[in-house]
């Protein structure tokens, strides 16, 4: 039931407890109870809108940065990861297998801001050996949703 609830919210976090209850065949009170458990365990750690600033005419620059670092004894990658992700510019940070150690997702109002962060803060940080910055040119699909609109299904309104 927990997983079904999380899946429903993942599709649409604005459903009310009553609507969730109807979809799950339980009461709204039971939904509220499950939600508080899921939130307490951080299985659900937030509710945010999926936004596309581009469509609202707002300029935004996004970059994906490959970061090579030196892990430290005792802390491995976690210590340096924490130093990096505490900057608010960093939206996501992942430890990766393969070519680079971290993959860092960031956004800013301009290219200049991103360059400033990388050259002044990130590249100069102790333990960071190398960075490679990729600027995002166009988004086709994000969080499971195609940004050029979902395809529609045109059915006859009534068939036997």
């Amino acid at each position, binding site marked *: 039931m927990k997983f079904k609830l999380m899946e429903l919210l993942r599709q649409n976090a604005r459903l009310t407890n009553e*609507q969730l209850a*109807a*979809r*799950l*065949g339980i009461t709204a009170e039971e939904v509220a109870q499950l939600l508080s458990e899921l939130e307490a365990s951080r299985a659900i750690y937030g509710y945010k809108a999926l936004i596309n600033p581009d469509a609202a005419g707002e300029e935004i620059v996004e970059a994906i940065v490959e970061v090579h670092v030196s892990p430290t004894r005792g802390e491995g990658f976690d210590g340096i990861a924490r130093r990096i992700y505490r900057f608010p510019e960093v939206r996501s940070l992942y430890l990766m297998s393969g070519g680079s150690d971290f993959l860092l997702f960031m956004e800013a109002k301009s290219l200049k801001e991103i360059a400033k962060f990388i050259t002044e803060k990130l590249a100069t940080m102790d333990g960071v050996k190398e960075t490679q910055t990729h600027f995002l040119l166009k988004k086709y699909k994000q969080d499971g949703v195609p940004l050029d609109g979902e*395809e529609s*299904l045109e*059915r*006859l*309104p*009534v*068939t*036997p």
Partner: protein
Amino acid sequence: MTVQTTSQIATKIARRVAELPPSGIRRFFELVLATEGVVSLGVGEPDFQTPWTIREQAIYELEKGKTTYTSNYGLRELRVELASWLARRYGLSYDPDTEIVITVGGSEAIDIALRALLDPGDEVLVVEPCYVSYAPTVILAGGTPRYVPTFQEEGFRLNFDRLREAVTDRTKALVVNYPNNPTGATLRQPDLEKLIRFATEYDLLVLSDEIYAELTYEGHHVSLAALPVAKERTLLISGFSKAFAMTGWRLGYLCGPAELIAAMVKIHQYTILCAPTISQYAALEALRSCDEDVAAMREEYRRRRDFIVKAFNELGLPTLTPDGAFYAFANIKATGLTSEEFCTELLRSQKVAIVPGTAFGPSGEGFVRASYAASFERLELAVEGLSRFLGK
């Protein structure tokens, strides 16, 4: 040159076509089509798109130029894959070379089966309420349909006493459809065993339309032909439309004893030649890669089913929980309205479309069919409309 009036031209129409009763719900369907902004639970097809992997495979095959005819029986690769899929899913055993023909939807399978079997005057038992095309297809094939009703009090299951009463010395076959459109009823193994004993007793063939088999919510679908001795008198009719959300691809299949299939392929080869090639390649991908897509759609339908059945019962419209397909068949007798009055008034006052039970046979009177192949939001809107309509 003489100008013929419409009525003169109409005299050219073959009598059995002219006399074919027009679909009882034509008028209602037209009313729905003419109404703007309808919340419709009247649709008999999935509200999911065909899974992308199937569509992408079809595009790839088109690029490779797969645009020619296939064998009359259908693409051999598809028949081989289908035979092993049927074995894996339902424990069926069909020879892909002689016992399977790929058709243009389940509809063509029903048509060629009946045309290959019926001589003028032969009778076919049609268990109703049922899908709209069985009886007309029997008539077009020169046969005579004999309706055998099922009832809500009996879970819309087969009643063998009533079936026996309908048998005459001209009865040649029986059409059953489980999971059922419109009732959602399924048959359990003991019913199926009785069915095959009944068919054996009267030497009847059974056309078993199992198009909704993959949409079974309670337990696993038992295919009639998987029962001992059943295969020799069963024609399995099914297709890709409902399970894989592929209605527009028009692809079905017919499985049965080799001699019968050969006779049916005779008609198929002269009238159809072969099912659409590109759809056959798409179906191949469906069988190979889409178990999880089907399971996900089934789970979504189940969630909607639970919601709508509960809502109908709470509104005072007794509705059995359908074990399969995607229809809820609600009893509206307490309202005092006929099925058509109920649906017409609901459409006029609330713009909610559901289908009168009478569309599916005489014993559908007093019932309405709501399809839950519609988004949850639509189901909620429809229930709200229905609730206002009933003054609750």
